């Protein structure tokens, strides 16, 4: 079967764009998060083939072929997500989109830029900045993540997508997208989704289950006249949380929270950290000088009302420059295990109180990393762990579920959907889940586009797992390893 598949793919795409080697396929069978091997019993992560199409025509031919033969396909950007969205669970074809990269058109008068989906965010940013322009928002993985990958990423759900740098001022990933060029599961190409009955937002945050985004048109604007980083130290983390709720009203460009435990983790990793208890970094940006000054004054008042101390501009600049390096302390683990969830800004303080309580109950140090979103805070509580200590690692994985559940109780949601959070599809996509399922059925009748993701969670035998089984599974797996291996 594989020889035949190879031959057919090579015929379609040429030999340089197809790989069937064992080592290559293994590298397309994972994302950033280490997945316990035992899950290979439930799912087939290894693709049968990896392809790197370089034109939309190739993408169309490929999808037509997959559709005719009912072969699962998984679009993949750089696989820098952690939810299992970018690799197969039923084998099939992994489509590496990074050969589709480059800028197609900059239209300054319309305030847009059209790019190929496999282009890195940072490449687009650099291109724009050279011309005095910039993007509204982008992920903190900008150096390596692709435009299509972030726009595809489930984030806070269908029609909204991810949160990133700029979101606290300008909105979700979806708020920055103007149009998409999409190859549908049947191979049909829609050059401008907005010119059809479908809408761009139908695809944003859909984890590639509806089709392949080939081009993306993003909104752009002039670099702000002023942009300045500020950094504050808070003795009391509760008060930092209260300050965040008020600063959020100023719509800063970026806001980053790191608690004392996080700074301790960094010290453990021998990183240079500022002398501080709990750190708050805020980037203000704007064109109106008078408003900018007013915002600085208001922020100053909020900070002093909650007992924060301003740190030097050098520290603030370093924190801003380090914005892409949220895992720099990873060597202290060497794994970082944790959750990623959103809570309404008003409930941020309470969520942290509960996370810390969970840490006390489990006798583990949980560090807090948080960034401000639109109406929510994206929280990444994390513990140091070690995947080589298999039993402990697996049992610690149950923490992920507890954190997710905690966020839901406070009106929040787990962040990102993919495979592992598909159990929370209802909570994350909300009312849009029904729409996603309807679109999936009509656009992908053979269920070949990234099957088993985003809408529900199923095993390689296509048995849908209910959420409670997931929770049990996380614990049960630990026991299995203990007794079995």
């Amino acid at each position: 079967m594989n020889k035949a598949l190879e031959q057919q793919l090579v015929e379609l795409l040429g030999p340089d764009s197809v790989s069937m080697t064992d080592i290559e396929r293994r590298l397309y069978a994972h994302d950033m998060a280490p997945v316990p091997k035992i899950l290979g019993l439930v799912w087939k992560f290894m693709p049968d083939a990896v392809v790197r199409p370089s034109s939309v025509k190739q993408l169309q031919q490929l999808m037509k072929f997959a559709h005719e033969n009912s072969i699962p396909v998984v679009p993949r950007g750089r696989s820098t997500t952690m939810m299992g969205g970018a690799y197969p669970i039923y084998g099939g074809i992994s489509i590496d989109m990074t050969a589709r990269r480059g800028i197609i058109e900059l239209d300054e008068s319309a305030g847009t830029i059209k790019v190929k989906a496999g282009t890195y965010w940072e490449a687009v940013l650099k291109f724009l900045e050279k011309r005095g322009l910039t993007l509204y928002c982008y992920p903190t993985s900008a150096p390596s993540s692709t435009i299509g990958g972030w726009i595809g990423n489930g984030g806070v759900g269908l029609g909204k997508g991810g949160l990133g740098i700029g979101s606290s001022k300008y909105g979700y990933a979806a708020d920055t997208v103007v149009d998409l060029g999409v190859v549908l599961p049947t191979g049909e190409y829609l050059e401008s989704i907005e010119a059809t009955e479908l809408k761009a937002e139908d695809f944003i945050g859909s984890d590639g289950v509806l089709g392949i985004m080939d081009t993306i048109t993003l909104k752009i604007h002039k670099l702000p006249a002023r942009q300045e980083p500020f950094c504050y130290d808070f003795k009391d983390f509760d008060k930092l949380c209260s300050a965040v709720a008020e600063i959020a009203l100023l719509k800063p460009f970026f806001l980053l929270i790191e608690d004392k435990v996080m700074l301790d983790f960094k010290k453990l990793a021998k990183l240079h950290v500022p002398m501080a208890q709990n750190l708050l970094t805020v980037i203000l940006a704007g064109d109106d000088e008078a408003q900018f000054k007013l915002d600085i004054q208001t922020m100053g008042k909020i900070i002093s009302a909650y007992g924060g101390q301003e740190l030097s501009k050098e520290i603030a600049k370093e924190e801003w420059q380090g914005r892409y390096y949220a895992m720099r302390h990873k060597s202290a683990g060497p794994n970082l295990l944790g959750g990623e969830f959103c809570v309404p800004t008003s409930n941020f303080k309470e969520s942290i109180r509960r996370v810390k309580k969970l840490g006390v109950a489990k006798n583990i140090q949980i560090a807090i990393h948080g960034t401000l979103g639109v109406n929510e805070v994206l929280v990444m509580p994390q513990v140091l762990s070690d995947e080589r200590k298999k039993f402990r690692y697996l049992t610690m994985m149950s923490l992920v579920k507890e954190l997710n559940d905690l966020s839901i109780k406070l009106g929040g949601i787990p962040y990102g959907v993919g495979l592992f959070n598909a159990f929370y599809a209802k909570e994350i996509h909300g009312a849009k889940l029904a729409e996603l399922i309807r679109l999936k059925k009509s656009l992908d009748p053979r269920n070949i586009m990234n099957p088993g993701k985003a809408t529900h969670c199923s095993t390689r035998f296509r048995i849908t797992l209910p959420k409670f089984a997931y929770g049990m599974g996380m614990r049960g797996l630990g026991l299995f390893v203990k007794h079995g291996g």
Partner: protein
Amino acid sequence: MLQERLREIEHDIYTCAQCAFCTATCPVAEQKGWETYGPRGRMYLLKLILEKDIQANDQIKDRFYACTTCSRCEKVCQTDLKLIEIWEDVRSWLVEDNMGPLEVHKGIAESVAQNHNTYRESAAKRDAWAGDIKLNRKGKIAFYVGCTSSYKMQQLAQDSMKVLQSLDEDVAVLGEDEWCCGSVLLRTGQRRQIKEIVDHNVQTLKNTGAEIVVTSCTGCFKTIRDDYPPIYGNKLPFKVMHITQYLAQQIESGKLKFAKSINEKVTYHDPCHLGLHAGEYEAPRAILRAIPGLKLIEMDNIREESHCCGAGGGLKAGMPDLALAIGQVRVNEAEETGASILASCCPFCKTNLSQAIEAGHKNLVQKDITALVVEAMGLNA
């Protein structure tokens, strides 16, 4: 066994976040595309080998030799891994297992063992480049010529010597006693001869009485300055400078003066071994700015973000097509500046960039900075 050796870097293997910052900036990954050709992919392959999911084979060897050791990956690494050390260690472990290096690299090691140079040339002719230039064996400064300048790019050796002698008569060269610095051996994981080479070169350089050793090759510079001390087991008894550092100092002190203008636009390519590895971005630029008439126009990716020429790490010898393709990316960038000269200061960069210019029929000439200095000083008359 590689699998056992990997325990030495086990913590690094598990620390790697798989964030792909490295792969997104790697010149080899840019050309090849596939994950296995990028540094993130290679870190994952090491994990698979360590966990006995796969075994080293020819494909794995190929991936680990498809690397210029440019260090871009290390510069951007999310978790501050010492990736160059990892790449070179793994290559040396492949060599231990008789899996590495590539055939052509073996030939280079044999040549170094027999002739003390990488080109199968006669060791006795190491001074032949000098022609009429009078050479000394003692001096305040020692010029370490390097294999490429000694045999293949003799103009560069002559230019370097002319400038150095015009500044200070006391310049020593080692002649037949100059052994290949061992850079290619270290980069390709062939460490067997290295201790003997290092001890020999350090001793003979010391015997010249020189306080400063100047090199015109950035590979020799990086190797002697950074790789020698731990192998030698001590601090080196002299200071090592790349010729651009030395010349920039002489310009600054007013000792080196220019007599002519070069009315051209120039762009500068940072050699990885001088820039990314040694952090020297300024000296070559200071020279270019000081030469009357020259106008320096920078490329988009410079200094810490500089792109590799493609020749390093044994790639030029091992996978010449890949090296050339990487060089062409850099040359395209140089062309976009509108400059007529693409300057650099490393014989490896010179070879590859010149070939890339030719292959792409570009309206550019590659010139070494020392050659430009000779021209502007009027020494080539």
